């Protein structure tokens, strides 16, 4: 995806054409809702060189994603955003949203989105009502009121992009691409407009050499976000091929399709019908069944859990998921990372040792 524009270019281009930018924090929200207002959601996952300015407001036991996001805000890295959107992903992102509303000046409107921890009709109805309330906020901010038909069209575009992402994930291990390049392409969904992502993704699928079999030992990658990216290089170097993805930023947002004629109900059903995710508090059995089915479909030999330190949603599931996978003959490895730091030497050793045990 060499021709894929960068985040900065996309933001500049969107603003030039008269659109607005929203900085959106992890994990679940509806892109279509923002796009219907000509607002481009650009996601911020806290990685990269954000510094540690966030430490002025957050204790050291807050995860590096949340501290990185706040640091990015405090150091002016998010200055292009005219509004912030904070999904209610976990206690720490809840805290961040609340800090912005009460204690740390965000300098722009902040819209929290609540994520129901249930999937029944009451939860879908609440999620739909939550999205409708955000619609009203955005209408107030922009002065426009997109029709239901506008919303449905925006959702259709996102569905199209989602299906391209799904095709990429399906072929993940067989595309002759370094892991870092694959994730750069898949994660461009975090800032590219849906139609551009879909076009770029299709191009990638057409032009990349496909192998019959993965080049390395097939593994499944689970976690929140694959940062720092050096770990992807270390996996490649050790002879692993990531063939299945269960990352919150990628595979867990391979959303369900819905045909609901109410656009808000449709968006809600898509999010709540997505693959089992820790941050939605899905039952252990369902997460395990999902991982096992991915593993058997792609002949996975090991699962690598790429965990952000202090991430409670992830850490609670880990022992039972690992046990379930091990019982099915799949080796597991848990790596704990601070996404703002370079991975330690020990992480490379753990990865290499895992691959040695599979040799």
């Amino acid at each position, binding site marked *: 995806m060499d021709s894929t524009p960068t985040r900065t270019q996309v933001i500049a281009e969107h603003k030039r054409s008269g659109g607005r930018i929203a900085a959106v924090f992890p994990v679940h929200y509806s892109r279509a809702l923002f796009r219907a207002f000509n607002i481009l959601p650009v996601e911020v996952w806290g990685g990269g060189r954000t510094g540690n300015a966030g430490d002025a407001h957050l204790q050291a036991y807050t995860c590096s994603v949340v501290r990185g996001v706040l640091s990015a805000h405090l150091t002016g890295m998010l200055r292009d955003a005219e509004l912030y959107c904070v999904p209610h992903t976990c206690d720490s992102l809840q805290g961040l949203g609340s800090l912005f509303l009460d*204690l740390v000046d965000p300098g722009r409107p902040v819209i929290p989105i609540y994520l129901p921890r249930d999937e029944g009709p009451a939860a879908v109805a609440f999620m739909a009502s939550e999205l409708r309330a955000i619609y009203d906020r955005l209408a107030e901010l922009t002065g426009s009121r997109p029709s239901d038909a506008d919303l449905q069209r925006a959702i259709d575009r996102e569905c199209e992009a989602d299906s391209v992402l799904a095709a990429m994930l399906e072929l993940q291990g067989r595309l002759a691409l370094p892991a870092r390049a694959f994730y750069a392409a898949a994660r461009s969904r975090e800032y590219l407009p849906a139609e551009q992502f879909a076009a770029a993704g299709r191009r990638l699928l057409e032009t990349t050499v496909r192998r019959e079999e993965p080049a390395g030992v097939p593994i499944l990658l689970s976690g929140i976000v694959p940062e720092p990216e050096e770990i992807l290089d270390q996996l490649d170097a050790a002879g692993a091929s990531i063939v299945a993805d269960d990352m919150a930023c990628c595979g867990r947002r391979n959303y369900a399709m819905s045909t609901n004629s109410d656009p808000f109900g449709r968006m809600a059903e898509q999010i709540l019908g997505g693959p089992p995710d820790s941050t939605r508090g899905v039952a252990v059995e369902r997460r395990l069944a999902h991982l096992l089915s991915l593993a058997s479909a792609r002949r996975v030999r090991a699962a690598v859990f790429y965990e952000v330190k202090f991430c409670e949603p992830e850490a609670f599931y880990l022992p039972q998921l*690992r046990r379930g996978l091990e019982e099915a003959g799949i080796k597991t490895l848990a790596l704990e990372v601070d996404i703002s730091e370079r991975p330690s030497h020990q992480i490379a050793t753990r990865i290499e040792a895992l691959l040695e045990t599979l040799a």
Partner: protein
Amino acid sequence: MSLANQLRYHLNVSIVGNSVLRLQRWQGEWQMSRPGSWQNAHIAPPVAVAPRLKELISRHYLKGQYAHLGRKVAWVTSGAPVEFLVALGYFVLYPENHAAVCGIRRMSESLCTAAEDAGYSPDLCSYARTDIGSVLTGKTPVGKVPRPDVLVCCTNICQTVLFWYRVLAHHFNVPLIVIDTPFLYTEATERAVAYVKAQLEDAVIVAERVAGRSLGFDKLKQATRYSRQACELWMKIMECGQHRPAPITAFDEFFHMAPIVEMRGEAFTVDYYAALLAELEQRKANNIGAVTVESKRLLWDNLPVWHRVRWLSEMLAERQVALVASTYTNAWGELAHLVDPERPMESAATVYLHPILNRGTGHKLKTMRRMVDDYQADGVILHSDRSCKPYSIGQIGQRNRLADELGAPALLLEADHNDPRAFSNEQVATRLSAFLELLEK
């Protein structure tokens, strides 16, 4: 319950158990009444009703031990609506409370280690690790913890409990009722109340199915009435701390709160708090302070440090400092006025959306400001609790604002509510001493 089991339950709990516990209580009361039985010069002797508290708690766990003879058992989170479970005859167990008991009895460290041995990260909430450790090893300081028939998890205190209860549900293979309470960044909306109410109605159906009986509306109203009465009395008990000298400290409340958390909705809880309140009123009238010489008054924010309650309370008392209130114990009283026994389901939906932990950092700051005023506190200790992110995030800003606005010292104290390994006596002692020196200026 079969007739034989019914008889065994009554024999063990109502006849033998009750008699033994009553006897122990009398012994306790008699020992307390002997001159010279209380040795601490800085802290007033415990209230005379204290042995009754011990009796209540012991009886609660005794009922748990024999619950297998016929009562259904629900494990619930501390902020969960419990009235419908009480009305359905469940024995209700609070893992968080049980974990705190483990912390007080110095068992939490080994239980946390057991959970870590099984792969649970040392960064997870220490309540959760303590209880998971207890579940995995069967070790507990309370005799025996009954296995759950149903789990009830309400997310109004944190999301942590949701993941924790998912682990329990997988382990025990029992139904889990989730009551998802949208976080109130500002105010509760009607749609949020409607969502919670819909979930409560679904919860009742599951709980009825597990219990094998249907919910009697009169019983629900009765339990809700007791709940409200107990919460009101609890609030009045805490408000006694506004008196100078304060007849009760937050350290005392940490122990006296057990019934309001785990025996809400029961008549005996109302009786106990009525007796405690009467005694505190008497102490107020006689100007008896919980700290013998009270020079300074402090507000506490966040959970107690269960494994160091006594150490901290003695340290402060020696310096003539009374911890007159806490946002934590306050949480079980401040919503009493929202409880409406005539509309139990509707009011529950509202009440259980509003705990301080389900509201924004600004609301907590406002609460602390008000409590500093109401209790005439000279300063605030904010326990920065490694194990409780929702309670702790925001404290840095809250501390700064309190200090700036009130000109009163506010200390951020790094600790962990149940894991002694994340606590350094030496560092805490130094920081606290420096803080108290500031206060004395």
